[in-house]
């Protein structure tokens, strides 16, 4: 499963899968760095969430490594790197999240932010 996810991520990146609706790469980088105007930011966010575009998502993941400050929480939750856990519990899963798992998630997010700063 993990392998096939990785493969599909790669094929999305390898092929030039830009579509008519894909934002420009410059807009994706600015979005990851928090430099977009509000309107353009909304456009990019909608594209990522509605079109679920892995190609654009990978640009943002890479550009986020250049952020000098931690990404806002909503960005990490919604458009974090593929294969990373989601910060929100899936609504279809009724299993309560144990306290230690919540702590680990916070610590992991903090670590990611710090690594981003080091980069």
């Amino acid at each position, binding site marked *: 499963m993990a392998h096939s996810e*990785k493969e599909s991520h*790669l094929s999305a*990146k*390898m092929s*030039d899968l830009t579509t008519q609706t894909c934002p*420009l*790469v*410059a*807009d994706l*980088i600015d979005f990851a760095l928090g430099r977009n105007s509000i309107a353009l930011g909304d456009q990019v966010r909608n594209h990522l969430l509605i079109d679920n575009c892995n190609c654009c998502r*990978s*640009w943002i993941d*890479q*550009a986020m*490594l*250049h952020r000098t400050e931690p990404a806002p929480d909503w960005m990490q939750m919604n458009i974090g790197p593929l294969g990373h856990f989601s910060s929100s519990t899936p609504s279809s899963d009724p299993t309560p999240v144990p306290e230690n798992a919540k702590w680990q998630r916070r610590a992991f997010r903090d670590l990611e932010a710090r690594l981003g700063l080091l980069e």
Partner: protein
Amino acid sequence: MPLNPSKFLHFESWKQLRQWLPEATESQLMTVFVWAGDLKPPPGDVRWVSEIRNAAFELLVERTRERLRRFLMQRCHCSDAHLVEDLIQQVLIKLYLRGEQFDPQRSFWGWLYRIARNEYIDTLRRRRPGEIGIGQTGSDFLDHVSENQIADSRTPEGAALDEERRRLLDEAIAKLPRIQQNIVQLKPDGVSGKDIASRLGISQAHVSQLYHEAEEILWEALEGRAEPPA
């Protein structure tokens, strides 16, 4: 209002500049991209400046991706397809963020390939600290050219290939900026980096940088045009 991205580029209007962009060379695109990023336009021109800058960068992305992929796989011997794709994106993001470091007097491709190689070496070092030597990433190309030519020349077919390689190499050298032509011609003659620096009036580090950038371009002229095996 006349628009002058450089000494050699002049446009009468934003529209004219926008229409010209697809015809620009990569070096010209980079010049326009950096110029537009530095502009402080009046409010009425902000949208144009942003459009020109982003369009120039988009064209650079389109034109460089395949060549970067080939460079990383063939020249740097990077066989990890995932890593290659990450590296391409990282190189282009660096181009976006540090475009002002581009010197239009030098070759765009030599500069880009050095960024790619350095990014690859940095990544390998992070993964396997202490294990990475320059030879493992396919450097020192020009040193190998003459050795290969000697080996090839032993047969008639080899001699013909040698002749062809020499022709391609001469053509590629002739296309380099003048300063890099001088360095590439002096170095194999045994002139030291220090002497070359002194003759050209630049630092030794600059000589080394220009030489390595020239190496990448000459590699592409001789070896890098062929498609990688499927």
